[in-house]
């Protein structure tokens, strides 16, 4: 549905995105992850035909963004970073205007408006001026705008910013329901969001794609060692050295809370059984023992930070506390 080939965007000397390629199949939800200034918005602006790429081609539903912008725009629903709302209009007036610009009229327009107002919970505010609504409501009006003409492709730039936790869950559900019938690209820097709603993740940093895979695959691929977190009630002074002696354990870190340890093991070797036996026979009072998988957050930090030339070890160490029991 979306094919991006080797697009580059330069602003004078500055290269915002550099030979970015990816594709999104029909019905797929793709997350665009990256730190601020990585080029997420630039890529989205090229896809929505707001600005042309310096090099490369972007195609949406078979139409080239440079050659047939109107055809592309007709098939896209786009929510920019800031919800594009007119503060002096009411919600219904605004949606009416949006629908007319997209060629909806009469009954179809009314029913589409009704559908989105219901879907996004705007019923109670539909006759109020958008200028008097809170950030969360404006964001929802922005989403309603993107969905109004039931586009094949949705491009959402940080769709859950400014929403409260309940609304965030609702919007994620909404996006998940759209998958299958719609192709969705959403950018975010909230990592659990990518894991929750997306089948595929593209991590972009410094204008280049540094990784592209499913959330699970990404963390698996980057996991260089198995980790075990261990909590003991009464550890002895020699606990860490004895733990290190267990076969397969490479490293033992003492955790922040008393009695917590983080063991780094050889890849593909589960030392949990051995460790448990040792803890029980030594009478350390085993409270908790679990394997720690690398979260997407760790992967993200590692990928985007090593990109900037930081030593990998330092990044891993900083990512570790995320896996520790608190």
């Amino acid at each position, binding site marked *: 549905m979306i094919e991006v080939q080797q697009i580059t965007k330069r602003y004078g000397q500055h290269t915002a995105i550099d030979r970015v390629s990816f594709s999104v199949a029909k019905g797929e939800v793709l997350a665009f992850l990256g730190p601020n200034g990585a080029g997420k918005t630039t890529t989205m602006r090229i896809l929505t035909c707001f600005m042309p790429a310096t090099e490369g081609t972007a195609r949406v539903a078979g139409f080239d963004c440079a050659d047939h912008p109107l055809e592309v*725009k007709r098939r896209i629903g786009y929510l*920019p970073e800031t919800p594009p709302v007119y503060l002096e209009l009411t919600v219904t007036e605004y949606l009416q*205007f949006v629908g007319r610009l997209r060629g909806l009229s009469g009954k179809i327009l009314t029913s589409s408006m009704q559908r989105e107002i219901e879907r996004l919970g705007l019923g109670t505010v539909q006759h109020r001026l958008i200028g008097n609504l809170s950030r969360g409501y404006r964001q929802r009006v922005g989403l309603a705008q993107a969905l109004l003409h039931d586009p094949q492709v949705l491009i959402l730039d940080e769709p859950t910013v400014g929403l409260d936790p309940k609304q965030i869950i609702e919007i994620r559900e909404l996006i998940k329901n759209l998958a299958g019938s719609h192709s969705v690209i959403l950018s975010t820097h909230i990592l659990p969001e990518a894991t929750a709603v997306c089948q595929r993740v593209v991590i972009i940093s410094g204008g280049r794609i540094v990784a592209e895979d499913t959330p699970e695959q990404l963390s698996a691929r980057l996991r260089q060692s198995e980790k075990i977190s261990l909590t003991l009630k009464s550890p002895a002074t020699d606990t860490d050295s004895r733990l290190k002696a267990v076969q397969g354990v490479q490293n033992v870190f003492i955790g922040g809370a008393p009695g917590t340890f983080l063991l780094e093991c050889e890849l593909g070797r589960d030392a949990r059984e051995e460790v448990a036996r040792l803890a029980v026979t030594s009478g350390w009072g085993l409270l908790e023992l679990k394997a720690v998988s690398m979260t997407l957050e760790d992967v993200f930090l590692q990928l985007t930070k090593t990109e900037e030339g930081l030593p990998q070890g330092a990044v891993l160490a900083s990512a570790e506390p995320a896996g520790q029991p608190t």
Partner: protein
Amino acid sequence: MTPVQAIIAKELRSYFVSPVVYVVGSVFLLIVGLLAYLYVVFAGAQAIQLMQMQGSAQINLNDLVFRNLFSSIRFILLIILPILTMRLFAEERKLRTFEFLMTSPIRISDIVIGKFMSVFLVFLGLLGLTGLIPLVLALFSDFNWYPVLTGYLGLALLGALFLSVGLLASAVTENQIVAAFISFGLLLVLWLLAGVGSLLGDTAIGQAVSYLSFMEHYDHLVRGLIDTKDLVYFVSGLAFMLFLSHRAVDSTRWK
């Protein structure tokens, strides 16, 4: 509803919920009304003087009231129309709705024409309200309607030109104040070109420079003279400004 109509409807709505139209409109009508009153009073004083000297007086309201009034309105428009146009594109860019417009499946020309038409309709509405002045005067006096109507045609054309210059100014900046000042500046230059032209005298360059100013063309219409040359000036000037606005809007995408 076509995209152009949708934009016109939305822009009119935006104009009438903001205080700008009411403030600008009130000031415009107040000043025009006051000027009309003053010109009529002067005309009356002149009539009384003539009566005392000659025993009878035949004063020409077309010369004493309407020509003066139309000349003055030209200057008022130069000041107030940039205030009406300054928000057209600058506000969209400030509030980030510009990106939404540009990613809507409509042509840029639809946006430019829709925005121009909306502010032109607002202006025609204001101009229409000043029509009360000749109507009231017609109740109490006799004058020739023809130059008044061509004068209104001149005002409509002049206003359209001013508004298109303002639209262009609004398209090149996201700051409304800057947009207003750019259009003041451009309009003053267009005005002063008449002076530059007469300074250069009756040479080819002098004539060309004078032709670029709206002064002479507008004066012809106020005097009741409909010349194709003047109509061509206004229409082509308007088209050129709309074309430049289109280019300016389009070019913002490349930055």
